[in-house]
């Protein structure tokens, strides 16, 4: 029992962070939002080279994984830097796709998006994906033959469309639950990173912005609001990594609930404490501000996650959410 990132896991975070810091991700995201996918695809390739997608693919299919903790580490950074595209969806698809697709996915040559039965009818960014997947209630995996017109989200870096029904049957009896777990866990990790970015930027802003002759960050109301934001993020973080370790459905739902809520709270705080300047599209901050709420709901709204937490509570073999041990 040692609930701490290993040195290798911390190194992975640092490697990705420095790759992303050097990649003008805000520019990439703006281009993505404007429909120019080329910079995003170039970034995707660099992330693949750093091993991102390999983490989702078993070794026998030219991957390194699946390594949920490493994936969670990576997705926190992806959220923190605001990387656009169906990243979560591609990693979730790795749990479903037949073996022949996996080497390409691991290498970053296969962007996928998907819907799952019982979830949202929309697939994220199908115009940017080589494969748009749907899964039938019986566990049949289909390559959708197309999709509806992508609709703009309030996050301009996201577009949503309903995949067309039918298409080629790629596999049967696919592990839908595992795909949902991955999508939910990594969306939680991404949301945590988004919340962290919002908090970091807001803290920096209130230290520097003065009103009435004082840094705004010296006002107790501002301090306490930021303290609460940190609190929510810091108690979501162990849930995200705990869920990555146990991969228990209840833990994953708890992580999603907490991280999504903390990110949205961070967005509200960031907006309020930046004042009017935070309300503009121009400020880089808006990249994260507009992402928080969609991520809070994607792959499990708060209500869905709460229901899941209680449905799984006390499940055989996992005392409590799961309680750590028995």
């Amino acid at each position, binding site marked *: 029992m040692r609930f701490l990132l290993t040195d290798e896991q911390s190194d992975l975070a640092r490697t990705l962070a420095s790759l992303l810091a050097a990649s003008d991700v805000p520019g990439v995201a703006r281009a993505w939002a404007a429909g120019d996918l080329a910079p995003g695809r170039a970034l995707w390739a660099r992330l693949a080279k750093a091993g991102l997608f390999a983490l989702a693919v078993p070794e026998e299919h030219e991957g390194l994984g699946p390594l949920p903790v490493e994936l969670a580490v990576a997705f926190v950074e992806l959220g923190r830097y605001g990387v656009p595209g169906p990243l979560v969806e591609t990693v979730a698809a790795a749990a479903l796709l037949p073996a022949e697709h996996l080497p390409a996915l691991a290498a970053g040559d296969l962007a996928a998006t998907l819907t799952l039965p019982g979830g949202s009818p929309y697939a994220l960014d199908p115009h940017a994906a080589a494969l748009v997947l749907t899964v039938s209630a019986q566990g049949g995996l289909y390559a959708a033959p197309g999709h509806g017109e992508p609709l703009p989200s*309030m996050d301009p870096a996201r577009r949503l469309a309903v995949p067309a029904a039918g298409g080629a049957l790629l596999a049967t009896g696919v592990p839908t639950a595992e795909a949902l777990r991955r999508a939910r866990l990594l969306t939680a990790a991404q949301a945590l990173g988004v919340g962290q970015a919002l908090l970091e930027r807001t803290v920096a802003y209130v230290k520097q912005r003065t009103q009435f002759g004082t840094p705004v960050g010296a006002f107790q109301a*501002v301090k306490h609001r930021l303290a609460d934001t940190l609190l929510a993020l810091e108690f979501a973080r162990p849930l995200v990594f705990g869920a990555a370790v146990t991969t228990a459905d209840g833990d994953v739902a708890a992580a999603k609930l907490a991280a999504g809520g903390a990110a949205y709270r961070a967005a509200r705080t960031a907006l*309020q404490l930046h*004042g*009017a300047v935070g309300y503009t*599209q121009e400020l880089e901050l808006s990249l994260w501000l507009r992402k928080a709420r969609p991520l809070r709901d994607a792959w499990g*709204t708060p209500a869905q996650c709460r229901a899941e937490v209680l449905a799984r509570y006390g499940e055989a073999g996992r005392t409590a959410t799961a309680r750590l041990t028995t």
Partner: protein
Amino acid sequence: MDLTPTPEVTAFREEARAWLRAHVPARPLPSLETAEGFAAHRAWEARLSAARWSVVSWPERYGGRGADLERWLVFEEEYWAAGAPGRVSQNGISLLAPTLFDHGTEEQRARVLPPMASGEVVWAQAWSEPESGSDLASLRSKAVRTEGGWLLSGHKTWSSRAAFADRAFGIFRTDPQPAAAGRPHRGLTYLMFDLRAPGVTVRPIGRLDGKPAFAELFLDEVFVPDEDVIGEVGEGWRIAMSTTGDERGLTLRAPGRFLAAADRLVRLWRGREGGAADTALRDRVADAVVGARAYELFTWASAARIAAGRAAGAESSLNKVFWSEYDIALHETALDLLGADGELEGTDWAEPYVFALAGPIYAGTNEIQRDIIAERLLGLPKGRR
């Protein structure tokens, strides 16, 4: 205590309702934060004005009906219940017009108000500057005396409507001496100016959803004739403060808006499959209904006090905090009710949600309003501000 309207008020309500029912566009106009939508909203103002519904509380000679506060509240309730368009002339009607009534000359009122009422001239406000958000007294933009008027120079921002509006109003430093001597509230003057005058550069600013809901104004020796100074030179702060008071009070946020929004929310909730069984959402919908009713009755109580000759004062800070947080909660509930569609840009609820998010920031941040409530209504010691 009496909540029964007189027959005259009821007749007024019915007249308004009948006209609105006949004239409100069946389909929502395009967003007023776009060039196309701005033009459509301006045309709507002209229609409203032709039937004398654009400024019911103004005197008849400026295009109004001389309606009292009760009728004004009734009109607003009917207006929003009818699903009528947002008011593109809002800034002029609720911020500049009250100032002209209190501090303007008759010549100014006769010249400025009728085209404001008809939407022929749409006004933007020009208060904030980059370094002066909550701290308005630290304004730097200046007006320098010249032959027959003043030359404005400086940089204004968060000027709502300015991307498409015709004219603007704001305060400018006409005398730098008092500020240099530590009295920054003095030496400011309230002016109106033309957004298309030489020397004005308007740079639209995209709101969170990308729409140019406000603009920066770069002013370089923009000429303003003396006739466009409101009140006395150097008294701009005092004059603006009374205007700011109105922005926070009844004039901007009639309960009709929230009653109509709560009504739409209930319809959304009732129309949802299996919605009624979800008590978590039901509770939030109920809170929206209760909040709208509370705001309505709070406003009626304020109106009755004002009618009885008592000033509104710091209670307008309670009002501001309440509606701004109410508005966000209501729209968050709506988005949650929409489920997977909640994040789409194209729903009826997306733009009002983004608009609601600004509520706790503008017209005095809610942090400042809470300071005012604590200090002026509860008598707590002044802290550092």
